[in-house]
């Protein structure tokens, strides 16, 4: 039994890789029906899936992949042409296979009873009993009480867990046929099952074990910092030398553990081209979708957390950004819109940008809406950056009509919240008529991060590096008052400032001439955070906040500093 499970798991992860390749290949075939390499490769991929499934007795998977393999074989031999119909068939087949593979033995099927079934309700109850006795019934449509009363037309849906049951039902006299019911792919649901790292080809380790390993390394880092502090306090040169080597080893260990958790962005991003294609088709848009930098690696759990926000941004780009072809032509734009997803590796973070050449965000409309919602006073004069910030307010949406794609009033706030959870930030820029660009800044890893330590009076705080553009020390006279707001003029740029001490209830030092300022930008806005003193950059281990403090969204977590004292981690975007 264990053995079978192992095979199943192996099959699942391998088939998943093939299916993700197939999505790309079929897109290639759609673009260029003469792409022989893609056709051959797709043919082989279906063939391999079929072979694997057959040895596990997954008959439905075998049937579907066999059929698609045949189709592609016919194309290969010139007996068949690549038609839109064929492409659709391939895509829907891939979806079906994905559904079957992800759900393992869990299935949702529609059962068709033949028209002359005597007492259909009784037949249905027999079927339900078979499922209950051999597996687990998870749900039915219509509900079971209705089925029992015979309130269904010829067919009904059962959702259950258990191997071989569907086959048994299909072979019953009164059953005319069964059909897989594919659910709307719920990413979230799938993610839960993905506890295994995809990238590693040789060893598969549950991610929980890596989490544990990382926590242990975190403890080690804290311990090291404490020893180093003691070494310098008591002036112990011998120990200092010893610790030098020791620190390097810990650093290496930390790097290695981090690397193990890294997977290329493509593991999640590879399904985006398909998503954009399907969505634009549905909405009557024409879109070229380009991805760059998907080979960059990121911590697996962070990558998972990115999936939803990115889907959201892509959806916005297709739905609200790109105009319909006729409108684009009228505007003198190329008929086809262009959406780009670019990932760039920065020093301690990854920048992921989704940009489109669509109609851009109507800033005036956003302001109007903000006023209507009472987010801002009628006569307020705001910069574009300040106005765009309203987009991140929960329940804010400028879309007039409610479509099933977006415009339900859930919008950028979801993206912002998701990014906040992983210590990242989001930024948005737009130009009317030209397009919109959303940037997500994501830390490379979550548990141990680079942070900049600062002081307020005697207390130390940590600011994650991802939030910091630069640090400057400016003369007090550089802080000026504009419209009752304090701003800093830095290289001809006017930047609003916040006194962190004031926000957290510390005394402000009156006699300080040079003010240390952290320049940060998030959500389309640049601002300065004034602190008492800079300490410097260091690695910190992020620990979740205890419950009471957890409600204060100014803090993103807590860390243990070198002197063993706790230091709160400032969640910069929530200061403003």
């Amino acid at each position, binding site marked *: 039994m264990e053995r079978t499970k192992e095979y199943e798991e192996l099959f699942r992860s391998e088939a998943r890789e093939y299916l993700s390749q197939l999505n790309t290949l079929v897109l290639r075939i759609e673009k260029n029906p003469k792409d022989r390499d893609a056709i051959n490769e797709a043919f082989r991929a279906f063939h391999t899936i079929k072979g694997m499934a057959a040895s596990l007795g997954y008959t439905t998977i075998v049937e579907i992949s066999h059929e698609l393999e045949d189709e592609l074989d016919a194309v290969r031999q010139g007996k068949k042409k690549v038609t839109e119909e064929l492409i659709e068939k391939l895509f829907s087949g891939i979806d079906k296979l994905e559904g079957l593979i992800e759900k393992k033995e869990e299935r949702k099927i529609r059962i068709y009873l033949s028209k002359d079934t*005597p*007492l*259909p*309700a*009784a037949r249905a*109850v*027999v079927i339900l*009993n078979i499922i209950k*006795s051999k597996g687990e019934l998870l749900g039915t449509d219509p509900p079971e009480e209705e089925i*029992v009363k*015979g309130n269904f037309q010829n067919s009904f849906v059962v959702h259950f867990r258990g191997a071989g049951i569907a086959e048994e039902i299909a072979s*019953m*006299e009164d059953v005319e046929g069964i059909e897989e019911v594919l659910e709307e792919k719920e990413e979230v649901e799938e993610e839960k099952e993905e506890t295994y790292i995809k990238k590693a080809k040789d060893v598969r380790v549950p991610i929980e074990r890596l989490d544990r390993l990382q926590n242990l390394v975190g403890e080690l880092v804290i311990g090291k910092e404490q020893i180093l502090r003691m070494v310098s306090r008591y002036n112990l040169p011998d120990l200092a030398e010893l610790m030098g080597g020791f620190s390097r080893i810990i650093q290496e260990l930390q790097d290695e553990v981090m690397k193990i958790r890294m997977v290329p962005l493509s593991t999640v991003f590879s399904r985006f081209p398909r998503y954009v294609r399907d969505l634009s088709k549905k909405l009557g848009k024409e879109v070229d979708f380009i991805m760059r930098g998907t080979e960059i690696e990121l911590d697996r759990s962070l990558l998972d957390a990115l999936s939803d926000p990115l889907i959201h941004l892509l959806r916005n780009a297709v739905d609200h950004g790109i105009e319909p072809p006729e409108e684009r032509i009228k505007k003198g734009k190329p008929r086809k819109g262009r959406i780009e997803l670019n990932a760039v590796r920065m020093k301690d973070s990854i920048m992921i940008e989704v940009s489109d050449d669509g109609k851009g965000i109507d800033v005036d409309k956003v302001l109007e809406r903000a006023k209507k919602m009472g987010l801002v006073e009628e006569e307020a004069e705001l910069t574009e950056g300040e106005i765009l910030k309203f987009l991140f307010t929960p329940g804010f949406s400028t879309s007039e009509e409610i479509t099933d794609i977006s415009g339900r009033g859930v919008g950028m706030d979801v993206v912002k919240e998701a990014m906040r959870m992983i210590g990242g930030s989001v930024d948005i820029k737009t130009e009317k008529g030209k397009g919109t660009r959303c940037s997500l800044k994501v830390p490379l890893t979550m548990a141990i991060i680079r942070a900049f330590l600062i002081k307020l009076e005697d207390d130390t705080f940590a600011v994650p590096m991802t939030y910091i553009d630069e640090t400057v020390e400016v003369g007090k006279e550089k802080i000026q008052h504009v419209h009752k707001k304090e701003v800093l003029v830095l290289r001809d740029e006017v930047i609003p400032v916040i006194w962190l001490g004031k926000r957290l209830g510390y005394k402000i030092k009156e006699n300080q001439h040079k003010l240390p300022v952290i320049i940060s930008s998030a959500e389309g806005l640049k601002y300065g955070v004034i602190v008492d003193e800079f300490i410097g950059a260091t690695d910190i281990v992020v620990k979740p906040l205890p419950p009471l403090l957890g409600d204060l969204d100014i803090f993103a977590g807590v860390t243990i500093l070198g002197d063993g004292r706790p230091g709160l981690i400032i969640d910069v975007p929530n200061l403003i």
Partner: protein
Amino acid sequence: MGARVLIVDDAVFMRRMLADILRKEGYEIVGEAENGAQAVEKYKELKPDLVTMDIIMPDMSGIDAVKEIMKIDPNAKIIMVSAMGHQTLVVEAIQAGAKDYVVKPFQPSRVLEAVQRVLKL
């Protein structure tokens, strides 16, 4: 050796037909009962592999008999034999533990299919 079957029906004609169909396929008819109460007694006595059970019978209906038999033997394999139009009753019987049903007038193939399937359970 064929499975041992108990046939329950108040009509001799029906019992005879069922017995013929099953015997032809090598099943052994170990007993017959003409009402529910008798069925329960015979079940206790004969411990058959399978029971075919009519629904509408005098002196304890087929459904009550199913309930009684299931109490005696939770693994009992019972197939309901019913007239068209008795859907609610059949559903009730199946919910009570019957494994399948056939509808009168029945075709031999349908009876055999149900019997074979239920015996495999």
